[in-house]
C-alpha cells in the first residue's frame, strides 16, 4: 500500500512539474527567445546600430531619468508610509492602506487620463498652468507623475508586512536607551528592513522603466523628447522597423532578467537574514 501511495504521488509530481514547465516554456521562455533572436536576427551590427539611433538613445535616457526620479520618491514615501502605518495608531489608518493599494486596482490607462483631466489644457488646473507657462502633461513632469502614481505601492506594500511582523520593540529599546529618532531609524529600523526595501526598490524600478499604458496617455509621443523605451518599441514596430523594435525590447527584457536574478539573490539573503533573526 505504502509503495503504491508514493508511486502515485510521484506520478502527480511529474505531471504537475511537467505542466508547470510546459507553461513556463510557452509563455515565458519562448517569447524571450523570440525577442532576442528577432533583435539579433540581422546580426550584432544591426542591433547595435538600432539601439544607437538618436531617438533610441533619447528614449533610453528618458527612461533612466524617469526611474531615477520616481524610484527615490517612492522609496521615501514607502518608508514614511509603512513606518507611520506600523509604528503608530491614528484614525484613517485603514483608509491610508487602501489608498496605497489604489494604483494596483486602477487600470494604467485610467491613471494616465486622471492626469490629463487634472493638468490638460481643459483640465482643472490646466488653464492656470498655461498662464504661468508651466508644462506638466505631454512633457517630462507628466510622465514622472504618471510613473510615480503607478509605482506608488511597490515599496510600501513590501515594507508594511515586514515592519508589522517586526513590531516596534527594537525601536522602543533604542529610544529608552537614549537614541535620537534619527539614530533609531538609521541604526535600528533601516538595517531591519533593508532586504525588504531593496526588493521593493527593484520591483518599483522594473515597473517604472516598463510602464506603457499610463505613460502613453500623458506622453504626447514627441520623438527624442517624450518617448520612453516601451513607447519607442511600439513606434518602431508600427514603422516596420522590426530589428529596431526588438532591439529596444530586448534591452527591456534584459532589464527584466537582471531584476529576476537580483530578486532571487535578495530572496536568498532575505531568507537567510530573517531565518537568523528568529
Amino acid at each position, binding site marked *: 500500500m505504502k509503495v503504491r501511495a508514493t508511486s502515485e504521488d510521484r506520478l502527480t509530481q511529474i505531471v504537475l512539474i511537467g505542466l508547470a514547465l510546459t507553461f513556463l516554456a510557452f509563455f515565458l521562455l519562448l517569447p524571450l527567445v523570440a525577442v532576442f533572436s528577432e533583435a539579433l536576427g540581422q546580426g550584432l551590427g544591426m542591433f547595435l546600430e538600432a539601439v544607437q539611433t538618436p531617438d533610441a538613445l533619447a528614449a533610453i535616457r528618458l527612461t533612466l531619468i524617469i526611474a531615477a*526620479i520616481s524610484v*527615490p*520618491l517612492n522609496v*521615501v*514615501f514607502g*518608508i*514614511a508610509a509603512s*513606518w507611520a502605518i506600523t*509604528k503608530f495608531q491614528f484614525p484613517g489608518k485603514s483608509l491610508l492602506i487602501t489608498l496605497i493599494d489604489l494604483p494596483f486596482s486602477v487600470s494604467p490607462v485610467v491613471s494616465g487620463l486622471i492626469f*490629463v483631466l487634472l*493638468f*490638460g*489644457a*481643459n*483640465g482643472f488646473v*490646466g488653464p492656470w498652468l*498655461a498662464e504661468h*507657462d*508651466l*508644462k*506638466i*502633461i*505631454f*512633457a*517630462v*513632469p507628466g510622465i*514622472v507623475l504618471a510613473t510615480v502614481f503607478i509605482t506608488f505601492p511597490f515599496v510600501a506594500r513590501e515594507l508594511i508586512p515586514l515592519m508589522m511582523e517586526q513590531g516596534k520593540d527594537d525601536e522602543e529599546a533604542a*529610544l529608552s536607551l537614549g537614541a*535620537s*529618532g*534619527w539614530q*533609531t*531609524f538609521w541604526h535600528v529600523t533601516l538595517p531591519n528592513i533593508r532586504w525588504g526595501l531593496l526588493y521593493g526598490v527593484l520591483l518599483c524600478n522594473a515597473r517604472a522603466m516598463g510602464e506603457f499604458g499610463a505613460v502613453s496617455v500623458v506622453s*504626447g*509621443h*514627441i*520623438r*527624442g*523628447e517624450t518617448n520612453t523605451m516601451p513607447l519607442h518599441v511600439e*513606434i518602431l*514596430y*508600427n*514603422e*516596420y522597423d522590426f530589428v529596431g523594435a526588438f532591439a529596444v525590447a530586448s534591452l527591456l527584457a534584459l532589464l527584466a532578467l537582471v531584476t529576476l536574478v537580483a530578486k532571487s539573490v535578495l530572496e536568498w539573503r532575505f531568507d537567510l537574514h530573517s531565518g537568523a533573526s528568529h
Partner: protein
Amino acid sequence: MNRRAVITATIALGLAAGPFLAGCTSKPTDPNAIVLTNVSYDPTRELYQAINPAFAAFWKQKTGKDVTFRMSHGGSGKQSRAIIDGLDADVATLGLAYDIDAIATKATLLPADWQKALPDNSSPYTSTIVFLVRKGNPKGIKDWGDLVKPGVQVITPNPKTSGGARWNFLAAWAYGKKAGGSDAAAEAYVTKLFANVPVLDSGARGSTTTFVERGIGDVLLAWENEAFLAEKELGKGQFELVAPSLSILAEPPVAVISANAKKHGTEEVADAYLRYLYTPEAQAAIAHNFYRPRDPKIAEQFKSQFPQIPMVTIDKDFGGWAKAQKTFFDDGGVFDRITTKK
C-alpha cells in the same frame, strides 16, 4: 523624538521633489533657434523625415535662423484629442479635415475657417483608397463587388477611431451607391462588406500589421501611400496593389495651430513651413513618398507611378466632413446601425 524623523523625511522628500519641480518651467529660448512641433498622423513619418531637413536648409538660407523639429505621430483622431488636451503643436498635419475642425471647435486654438488659409483646401498632398492583396491575387479580387463574396476576409481599421478607415467606409459607400443606385443599396452593400471584416484595428498601421505581419485576411483596404509603402518596405512580390473602379479623393489637411504658434512666437515660420509643402521640391518629395502631389507639373512627372482611378470627393458627394461625420460615424449613425445589425 519621532517627530524629528518625520521632519527629516519631509525635507528629504522636498529635496527629491525639487529638481523635478524645477524641470516644469520651460527653458529660455534662444532667439536664433526655432523649434517647431509638428503633430501628425500615422503614415507620414517617412514623408516629414524627407521634408523637414529640406525646409530647415531653406529657412536657414532665407532668414539665417536654425529650425529644429519635434515630430509626434499617432492615429489622426488621437492626435487631434491630444492637441485639444494641450499637446503643444505649432502645426497639425492630420488625416482628415474633421480632426482639425475638432481642434477649432472644441478648443478654439485656430479659426473655424482654417481650411481657407492655404491653397487646395489646405491639403498639399492627396491620396486615395486602394486594395492590397496577397501575391497572385488568389481570391481574384478586382473591384469592390468582390469584397462581399462569401469567404473573402476584408481588413480595415475601425472608422470610429481611424481617419483612414473613414475614407475606406465612404469609398465603399460611394461604390455601393453607384452600383445599386440608392442610399438603401449603399447601406446594404456596406453591411455585407463589414460582415466580412474579421477584426477592426484602431488605426491604419495596426490594420497593415494585421494583414502583412499576422497574415490575416485576403484584402486590405488601405491608403494608397500606405499600400505602396507596405509593398516596398516588406519586399516586392509578396503583395499586389489593386486599383478599384471607383475610390475617394482623400485630402489630408495641414494647419497652423495659431494660438500655440502665437504663444511660441513661431507664427511666421509655421506658416512658411506649411507653404513650403506646395513648392516643387516638397511636391517631388511628396510624390517620392507615394502621396499624390497637387502641383500639376510634378503630378505629370510622376503620372505613371499612380493608377488612374475615378474618384468621388467628400465635399461634392458627401456634403463635407461635418455632415459625413454626423451621418455615418457619430454615435447612432450609419456605422453603428450596420454593425449592430449583424
